[in-house]
């Protein structure tokens, strides 16, 4: 199987391209996704290839074009609205939460809503409090939605292709920093990654490190540094929050006895809370240390880099948490 190195953005673009070629019901809509190719270049050249009927530049109307996308999905299309900065998704909340998520259930199964909403997440670019947030936890809290956060180009392509074949509403979160900074091997041959299947990115025995989206990268780096100290960490990427692969998480912690959960969403009531709860319940008798949660600090994300980086989990913080887990324990 041959692979090539693609950036995160390129992998996403490829998934869109392949699926649009395969299924003419798929169309992209959003701000500057067409002629401009997307502010993060994720839809580059798709406009030229598929035309303005299928790659549509919308007015600046998140509620309007997401609402339209919901109606199109209910009547047989598969729209892919793009929310340029995940923070703006708040403008479309009713369409996503009260309409898309509930239409199938409220009609007793008469409709399906195959809509894939691509939204960005993550800070670290001095974009300020309204352009740096990560809202995956909110949507995981809504029955009827599926929530996906890939961390590598390989995962991004496989998961996005699955999303584009999924007959249900999917929130697909893409970390902005990863778009051009993270490269990885992507097979030439077609592949899909199913939802609800976590990925053990590093096997270990002494502590479980669970990380979402971009946080996988400092977590893997932390794991290498811990290995040098003789602490063998297992790193797990849940990949999808809904559906969630509880089994992999629980089995891992039953093995290692302790977990650190790393996420860029806010800590208070964030995704880390649910993951910690799942682990605490499922691996209760095997916990040898309290579960550690590292999310974004519970403050609006500041602009000045010194402040901003203090609010985001990093290698050092992950290592410190891992140390607390293994302290005084021996195998």
């Amino acid at each position, binding site marked *: 199987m041959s692979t090539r190195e693609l950036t995160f953005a390129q992998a996403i673009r490829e998934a869109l391209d392949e699926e649009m070629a395969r299924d003419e019901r798929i169309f992209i809509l959003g701000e500057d996704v067409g002629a401009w190719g997307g502010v993060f270049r994720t839809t580059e050249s798709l406009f030229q290839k598929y035309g303005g009927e299928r790659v549509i530049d919308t007015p600046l109307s998140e509620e*309007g074009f997401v609402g339209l996308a919901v*109606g199109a*999905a209910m*009547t047989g299309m598969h729209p892919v609205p793009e929310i340029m900065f995940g923070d703006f998704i708040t403008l479309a909340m*009713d369409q996503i939460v009260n309409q898309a998520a509930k239409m199938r259930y409220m009609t007793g199964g008469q409709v399906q809503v195959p809509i894939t909403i691509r939204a960005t997440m993550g800070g670290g670019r001095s974009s300020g409090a309204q352009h740096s947030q990560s809202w995956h936890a909110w949507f995981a809290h809504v029955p009827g939605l*599926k929530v996906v956060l890939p961390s590598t180009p390989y995962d991004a392509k496989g998961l996005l292709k699955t999303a584009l074949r999924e007959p249900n509403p999917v929130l697909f979160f893409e970390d902005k920093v990863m778009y051009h900074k993270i490269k990885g091997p992507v097979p030439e041959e077609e592949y899909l990654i199913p939802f609800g299947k976590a990925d053990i990115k590093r096997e270990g025995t002494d502590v479980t490190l669970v990380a979402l989206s971009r946080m996988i990268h400092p977590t893997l780096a932390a794991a290498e540094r811990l290995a040098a100290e003789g602490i063998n960490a297992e790193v797990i990427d849940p990949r999808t929050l809904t559906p969630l692969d509880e089994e992999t998480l629980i089995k891992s912690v039953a093995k290692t006895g302790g977990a650190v959960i790393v996420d860029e969403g806010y800590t208070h009531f964030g995704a880390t809370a649910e993951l910690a709860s799942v682990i605490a319940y499922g691996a209760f008798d095997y916990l040898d240390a309290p579960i550690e949660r590292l999310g974004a600090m519970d403050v609006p994300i500041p602009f000045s880099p010194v402040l901003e980086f203090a609010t985001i989990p990093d290698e050092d913080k992950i290592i410190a948490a891992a140390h607390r887990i293994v302290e005084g324990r021996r195998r």
Partner: protein
Amino acid sequence: MAQNKSESIPDLGRDILLEMYRRMLTIRVFEETVFEVYRKGWMPGLAHLSDGQEATAVGVGMALRPDDTITSTHRGHGHIIAKGGQVEPMMAEVMGKVTGYCRGKGGEMHIADVSLGILGANGIVGGGLGIAAGSAFTAKREGKGRVSVAFFGDGAINQGIWYETANIAVLWKLPLIYVCENNQYTQFTHWKKLVSGEGLAARARAMGMKGVEVDGNDVLAVYQAACELVESSRKGEGPATLVCHTIRYGGHHVGEPGTGYRSKEEMDEWKKRDPILLFEKKLFDQEVLTPQDVETMHDEVDKRLQSSVEVARQDPFPDVKEVTEHVYA
């Protein structure tokens, strides 16, 4: 611009006229029956009734093809019946039975029948506007000339979603007809206190589409106006807005008498122009209908509604095991 009132009956044929009358009557009796059902405690939740608004619903509903779609409001029973919805599964849905249109999962505010192009009544004010725009988008792609109609009330006039979708609809020439059923009151407040400028039809024109106002209690006037707008939309001329002025007889929901904010005089004036009686008189005058016909039809409709209640009462509730079904496809 469409006529504001219809002076005579256009040459529609007796069948269509009778069907119009029958549907209006069915809506009226359905709403009255639901009122009874609610009062007897045979249905849970709330009931939002549209008696008094029959002409708007039927005038638009009968201007549509079976494959045209509609979205509706929380006060949607009339729209659904006007589009061909059947009272039996509606009554069952209202009572939360598994035989209802939505297997008891939607309830009286969320009835849908996708096979009839009814994309759902909606509990969020303006909630159907995005969906209707999407349906229009798909219709345009399909190229079969179908249109999408969005029913909404005066309350939705100020929801941002109207402006966002209207803007897109005009730019993309979507076959979307906005039908504003202005029943004068946004819940308990008169609409004139809440809407700036000259109202929705003017706003629609400012956005670049046709904006027409019509007497919402004159079913033929509504029908004519709707037909014109629908035809031009079908041809690809883009969206349009039809504002129908009407009144709801009941309160905002059953249990709310509707008298705290509306005077008796006001209501009496409106009742003089009851849409069903108005139409009936025209039909008598033109000898399309006799009083005997009317009685027969009343009997039939009454019987049908009573029977729908009896059947729905006997029908089973959904099995609790179904609670987790239909979340995902």
